């Protein structure tokens, strides 16, 4: 794995149209980004499409990357994850009703979740998530890692969608206060 500083250099080169740098950037980051979107999409074909679109966007918008705001991998993962969420939200609403087993399938296909390095930022965020009630911790983490909609979360927690809505909002505002945002 390249260091964040090396990735910043690569992105700067990509912004200038350096194809070799783009190839190295892809090689260094593809598995992480694919892991992130596959968790959410649960389908290899969709995940591959999303990852393709994400890297095209990364190629086109590398000039907008600001290393003062985010680490390279966080910036790239945000692009990929946003695309994945857009895809599940657009198809999600129907498929949950059409396939009552979709939830079970999603929950049962295991994904590796490995602990890699933990940065200060991650520890800080987890500390704030840890101050939420246990159910809300789970809610926030399931929403983030699995990209679940409010409806899916409501089914999981056996609670009305509006309650989930309220919990999510309060949780995010609690995290905001804890982070001092």
């Amino acid at each position, binding site marked *: 794995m390249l260091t964040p500083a090396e990735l910043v250099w690569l992105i700067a080169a990509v912004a200038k149209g350096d194809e070799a740098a783009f190839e190295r950037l*892809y090689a260094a980051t*593809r598995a992480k980004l*694919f892991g992130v979107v596959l968790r959410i999409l649960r389908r290899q074909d969709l995940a591959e499409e999303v990852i393709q679109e994400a*890297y095209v966007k990364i190629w086109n918008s590398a000039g907008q990357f600001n290393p003062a705001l985010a680490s390279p991998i966080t910036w790239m993962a945000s692009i990929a994850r946003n695309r994945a969420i857009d895809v599940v939200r657009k198809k999600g609403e129907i498929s949950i009703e059409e396939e009552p087993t979709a939830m079970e399938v999603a929950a049962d296909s295991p*994904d590796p979740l*490995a602990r890699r390095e*933990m940065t200060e930022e991650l520890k800080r965020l987890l500390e704030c998530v840890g101050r939420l009630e246990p159910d809300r911790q789970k809610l926030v*983490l399931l929403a*983030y890692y699995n990209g679940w909609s409010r409806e899916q979360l409501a089914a999981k927690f056996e609670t009305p969608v509006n309650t989930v809505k309220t919990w999510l909002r309060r949780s995010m*505002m609690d995290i905001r206060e804890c982070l001092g945002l």
Partner: protein
Amino acid sequence: MMAFSEDHIALAAEYALGTLDADERAQVETMMAVDAEFTAIVHAWEYRLGVLNQMVGSIEPRPIVWENIKAAVGHSGAQAPMELPETPQVPPAVVEQAPVVEPAPVADNLNVIQSNAAQSNVIQLSGRVRRWRNVASFASAIAAALIAMLAVQVYRPDLLPDGLRPKPRIQTVEVKTPALPAPPSAQYVALLQQNGGSPAFILTVDAATKNFTVRKVGGDAEPGKSFELWLISDKLPQPRSLGVIGGAEFTARPVLSSYDAGTINSATYAVTVEQAGGSPDGKPHSTPIYTGKLIETVPAGAAR
């Protein structure tokens, strides 16, 4: 950031978390297109939450993915992607197997207080040695949450030794009195577009002041012509001109102040091509080329 209501901030946070529905996501994206400060708030949330991805395992995509990316960005060369030494990669086949988890003992976690690459390699190695296959039968989704929660427990500051405990932060708490300032006014946005294509202009209206702003995102009018914005309402006998737009990237005007809120909200906004400087007689002289209606992006001082 002061200028944004809690509703805006909650919307940005939930966008980053991913729990908004498709319509709400589209709304946020529209708002981001017109408001750089709001975009900054969304990005701040995305990057704050994005660190959670550090705990997601890597999975190799198939080589065809790179071929497709190369084709899409128009790369010339046909070499295979350079192979770099990577953290342990899990082939897609592993999706069928039990989750591989790497919880680390507390002592190890406490030492991970840097993002220094060399040191993190050491930690990864020691983590790898301790890795075990989780044969528990609970769903991986929950496993993911539990592992993160385990880490949360570890980072509960009250569990840390004194020296490592973070210093209490002083927080200023805003005390709300009955004499609250007026709640933030609703913001309305219309994308003026042709047949659902990409917008040529983005119109925003502040419900309280009725000021409107038009941002040009499409091309210029042809030489000798001007774009003119019109308000079309069934409450009015004919289209009313809101003036020539598109000469600069932004146009801001208070022209709407003479219309009531119902008219403003339900009207169609249309752009015509007129002679340079705009219609001489206050009537449109072409069929509208871009049209749109307002949608409410953030409700006024909405209840939680």
